């Protein structure tokens, strides 16, 4: 489904200046900006301090990187999860099982 | 064994009657028969009371009207215990009242359902429930 041709029709007046924001190109630009910021941030951190800004004395290195990888893995694992444990939307109501008190009277 | 049984013949009869009565209440689906069973059951209790008031060798506790004054009574005479008899008179009245109410109810049930059989009544009631959609 694509946006209606006259995509400004029905828009809230406050949102009109931002109408292009959902186009794929805007998304790509935002993505690139964020990527630059992230890489820049880590670069800056490495330059400014030796071995990364140690946020806490005992925790060394750019420990934020690990969660990023983990988040990516989690998102990808989501596919497996969807395959494994998702069921049709009417799973519970279709099965006779869910007919409890609500319907007997 | 036989002697014991003969000695307590009354009690054997009472127990048999009691069981017969209860069994009739349990087993039959016919309401009138069920009431009959109930009456038999009650009767066994009457017999129980009467039996226990019996004193061996005792005369019926009926005094001659003219001999009512104590001094004229034989102090060694043995009488059966009159109290249970009196109690049972009351119990019989109660039993009769119960039976009559029960029979009246059976008549009404027959009018309302057209049957006095347990099964049929239950079925009629079930259909009533089913109509309403339990």
């Amino acid at each position, binding site marked *: 489904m694509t946006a209606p041709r006259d995509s400004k029709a029905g828009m809230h007046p406050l949102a009109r200046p931002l109408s292009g924001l959902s186009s794929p190109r805007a998304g790509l630009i935002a993505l690139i900006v964020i990527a630059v910021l992230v890489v820049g941030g880590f670069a800056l951190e490495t330059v400014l301090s030796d071995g990364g800004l140690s946020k806490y004395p005992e*925790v060394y290195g750019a420990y934020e990187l690990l969660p990023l990888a983990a988040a990516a893995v989690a998102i990808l694992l989501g596919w497996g999860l969807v395959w494994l444990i998702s*069921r*049709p939307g009417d799973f519970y109501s279709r099965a006779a099982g869910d007919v409890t008190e609500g319907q007997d009277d | 064994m036989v002697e014991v049984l003969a000695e307590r013949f009354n009690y054997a009869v009472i127990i048999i009657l009691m069981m017969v009565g209860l069994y009739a209440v349990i087993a039959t689906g016919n309401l009138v028969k069920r009431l009959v069973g109930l009456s038999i059951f009650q009767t066994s209790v009457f017999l129980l009371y009467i039996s226990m008031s019996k004193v061996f060798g005792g005369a019926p506790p009926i005094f001659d009207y003219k001999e009512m004054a104590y001094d004229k009574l034989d102090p060694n005479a043995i009488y059966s215990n009159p109290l249970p008899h009196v109690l049972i008179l009351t119990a019989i009245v109660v039993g009769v009242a119960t039976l009559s109410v029960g029979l009246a109810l059976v008549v009404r049930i027959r009018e309302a359902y057209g049957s006095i059989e347990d099964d049929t009544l239950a079925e009629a009631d079930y259909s009533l429930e089913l109509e309403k959609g339990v």
Partner: protein
Amino acid sequence: MTDAVSILNGVSPAWFLIAAGLLAWASPRSELRKALMMLGPIGALAAWFATGETGVYGVLDLGPVVLETFRLDGLSRVWALVFILISFINAVYALHERNRMTDGAALIYAGSAVGAVFAGDMLTLFFFWELTALASAPLIFAVGTPEAQRAGLRYLAIQVLSGVMLLGGAAMWASQTGSWAFDAIGTGSWAGIILMLAIGLKAGFPLLHMWIPDAYPKATGVGSVVLSAFTTKLAIYALARGFAGEDALIVIGLVMAIFPVFYVITSNDLRQTLAYALINQLGFMVVAIGVGGHLGINGAAANAFAGVIYMALMFMVLGAVLLRTGTVKATELGGLYKSMPITTLFAIIGALSVMGAPLFSGFVAKTLILSAAHHEHHDLAYTLLVYASAGVMEISALKVVWFAFFGKDRGLRVKEAPQTMHLGMALAAFLCVFLGVNYPALYGVLPFDMDYKPYKLASVYGQSQLLLGTMLVFGLALYFKLFPLKSDRTILDADWLYRRFGDASARWGAAMGQLLFDAIGKVLGAFISFVRLRLFNLFSPAGALSKEFPSGMMALWTAIMLAGVVLVAYFSPV
């Protein structure tokens, strides 16, 4: 303290809310109800301020037990304050709604939550604990669909079960210690464990959490706001009161913080996504309580305070979306910023708070917990919490904002949300920013004094990196269409245990029972066929136990019972 307010000294704020709720139920005019919904929290707030001194008020001597209905101390006043605030915000937010049932229920629910927080003994706690259950269920029932009815019953079942376990545990506790007072309990006895499970049921402990994602998405738009605020946070309070410093809680909290990640990613219903994010939040607080110490308890309190407000804001946003579009499914929404820009703004503020961006309330609360974990040398816990905050909190917030307001434009052109809803959201959004910027205000109400600065370069820098990094991962996943999302799917969770497995086993049991009774019937029938017992009929579903003609059966029972008594009497000592 002015004289006008000081007469309220010692009056529990809970009564204002509950009284307002009862009046709201009684009042037929919606204007009056709306006024009551505003006045109740205002009165409660006045009472909260009027009772400046900590202490025990509202003592009710019932003979065998003494009920303390209003125990004001450092711990209870934080929770009560945020509960009162959120009930006021909700009143503003719900101004457009005309429903006598939910208006009153929301007030009584808030009042009972406040009352439970102020309870000084376990009986009072139990009373309000159950009242929260009973008063909140109408918020789900009010939707009116059969599905909501069933979800409401399940919700109620869990909540009432929790209350009963609480009472049972309290009774055991009282019989062991001789005191009904609700103070530190610990898991040293069975009573303590039962109490912790009872509280855990409401706090969403793993495997006991299923009611949260089951019920919250099915409540009314306004209802889910209130639901998200009270029940679980009340349980957090109870944990902080009774089980501070229990090591087991750290493990439990970590599991709660991490496992929702998969559900947050896969669930399609955005309110369900938020519900899972809520479990993650609760996990943070549970960890903080498990860590214990002043910093830990303060962290839990600060998180509860900020969390109530920003989660309510997120649910308010989705409530507005639900009101206007009729759905909150990720696959059916998109591009809403074009028609609802103001709501979008609030959504972004809420999301930034949830994510813990610097200058928002989430940040000042979350760093407290991270510091506490770090301070007490729970390094693994610390690392896992950082991971959880990246994986769950941020993804959930990004997901809600992206899929509802940006993303693919589905051509939905709806009206902007009502002004009153905006006002409610604005209040919550203001608090999110205010507490984030002016953090001493938040730290000032916390149970313990502390000298803590959240805005250190290291924290801010690290947190920003984390945020941007997660946004990058999220954006990349979206750009390469790697985000797993399917329309109209049911994601199984622990509720499968009772919705399918439990049901199936009940069915199996019933079928086996039927077979058994059939068999008994046959065997008996062979022996005494004309004694028409129909033992199996007795237990059959059509309910021969409720059959109209049991007198024969009954005579048999009489005989059986007589035999029982005679036997017992026969073998008894003289």
